[in-house]
């Protein structure tokens, strides 16, 4: 009987996804993010592409993969807005990288950790976008509305927890 010896959490719980899921889910999230605010304008406060970045980055536990996924999703998101292309790309690349790095260290399937992680990453993204606008682009009129960002983080977390449980079904162990 073959025996396995694991030396880290990464080797223990590294997942992969079928190419269809890896492409279709982020694309679907981007589509929903662009379409649903037309019907429910307040839906725009959510950031479904961010949730896709966090989920895939954490599940793959590969920082390079996480950064590339985040950058790609962020760039598509930027291209659909009237903002400069690269704002979301940079912010989500950093979040993908950090999420993957955290995934190596801790058990990210724990619901409490997922809540903390999503809440924290949502706030981190808001802070990074604010910093990019203010510092790099010189848009001094940009303001960070903390209450608004806290609400955004809370709603993102509320959506992320059940969504991640659903997406767990598409995981395939390496």
């Amino acid at each position, binding site marked *: 009987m073959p025996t396995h010896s694991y030396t880290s959490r990464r080797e223990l719980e590294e997942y992969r996804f079928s190419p269809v899921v890896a492409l279709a889910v982020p694309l679907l999230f981007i589509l929903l993010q662009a379409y649903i605010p037309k019907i429910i304008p307040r839906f725009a406060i959510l950031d479904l592409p961010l949730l896709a970045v966090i989920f895939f980055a954490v599940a793959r536990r590969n920082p390079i993969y996480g950064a590339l996924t985040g950058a790609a999703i962020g760039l598509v998101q930027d291209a659909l*807005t009237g903002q400069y292309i690269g704002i979301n790309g940079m912010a989500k690349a950093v979040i993908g990288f950090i999420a993957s790095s955290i995934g190596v260290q801790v058990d990210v399937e724990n619901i409490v950790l997922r809540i903390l992680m999503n809440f924290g990453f949502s706030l981190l993204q808001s802070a990074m976008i604010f910093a990019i606008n203010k510092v790099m682009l010189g848009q001094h009129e940009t303001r960070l509305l903390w209450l608004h960002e806290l609400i955004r983080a809370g709603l993102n977390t509320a959506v992320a927890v059940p969504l991640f449980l659903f997406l767990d079904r598409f995981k395939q162990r390496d």
Partner: protein
Amino acid sequence: MESFFVRFKNPLVLIALLLVQAIALATQVRRPEDPLRPDGQHARLVRLWAVSLVAPFERLSAFSGHGVRGAWSDYIDLRHVRQQNEDLKKQLDQLHLERAAISEDAVEGQRLRGLLDFKQHYIQSTVAAQVIGTSGSDQSRLLILDKGADAHLVPGMPVITPDGAVGKLRDVFPTTSQLLLLSDPTSGAGVLLQSTRIRAILRGTSQGAIIINNLTPDDRIKPGEKVLTSGGDMVFPRGLAVGTIESIKPDPEHQPYTTIVLKPAANLNRLEEVLIVTSTGNRLDPLTEQELAKDAQIHAADVSAERLPSMHEGKPEADPNAPSDAMPPPDNSTQLVPKPKPALHPDRYSTGSAPPATDLTPGAPRPSQQTAPPATPPETEKPQ
């Protein structure tokens, strides 16, 4: 050296990614080729790819959603339609009357503008488009329309609804286009406060509000005042409704200016269909001109009928001694010519005492002159 790259492979990849995007950002900021597209032509290609990726799905979703709602509203939910139809007919009749009343002024105004060589831009042609998607971000107020360059749209065209102005086209792709709403932080328009006639510039904010922040405090500006497009921005035709003033407060960061928040005339959060103004002109379109002229004729006939005495034969004579609470006489009435009161002690300066000019001879004495004629003719100097 090799071990360095292997050891720090992950952070190096991240740094490379960030560096590339930072350079891309700097390139976009540095190259404002077109004020309507501050991010340059290269970014437009990336946007084209992204919009091409999502537009077919959005178009399909919008089409199916529209079909379901159309089937419900057109075939199933027909309650109160008859009553609504009657109400609308009454409203239409009322609007016809109002239009007849103002059409004469409109024609006259147009004629006077022509005399003054004032270039008024009227909307001549529009293209209807459907909103199929959004930017998906609450920091960018941008919508995706289902019409593009194939419908002869170009960037910068104003976009309106029957309620008023909503924005202008940003990027135009072959089959889709991006509508930049007035509430976007990068948006702006020249406006005019309707009653005070103060000109201003409005802009959007990152919270999706529409504000005017280039006016100093003025007691004449009150909440509820209507705001119209001024036409000064060379984008929007003059006189389109933009919104009403919601609040006025001092701007602490830009003293002594105020922040005037507007409530948009059109519901920018619920746009389904919009009209893109594809051309404007100095004259109204012929059909509208004909209708206005016809309405003006009807209105003029009504006014004449009111003024002609024969049309009022059946009516009782008004008592001249009754207190005058009626309308003032018309401008060309003879009642307006002042009549002088008779003089108490008439003299040669009194009205009516002088003979008509035709009866007078130049140099002749006045008939009423009572001075005695000289006995001898006056001596004249004779040449020696």
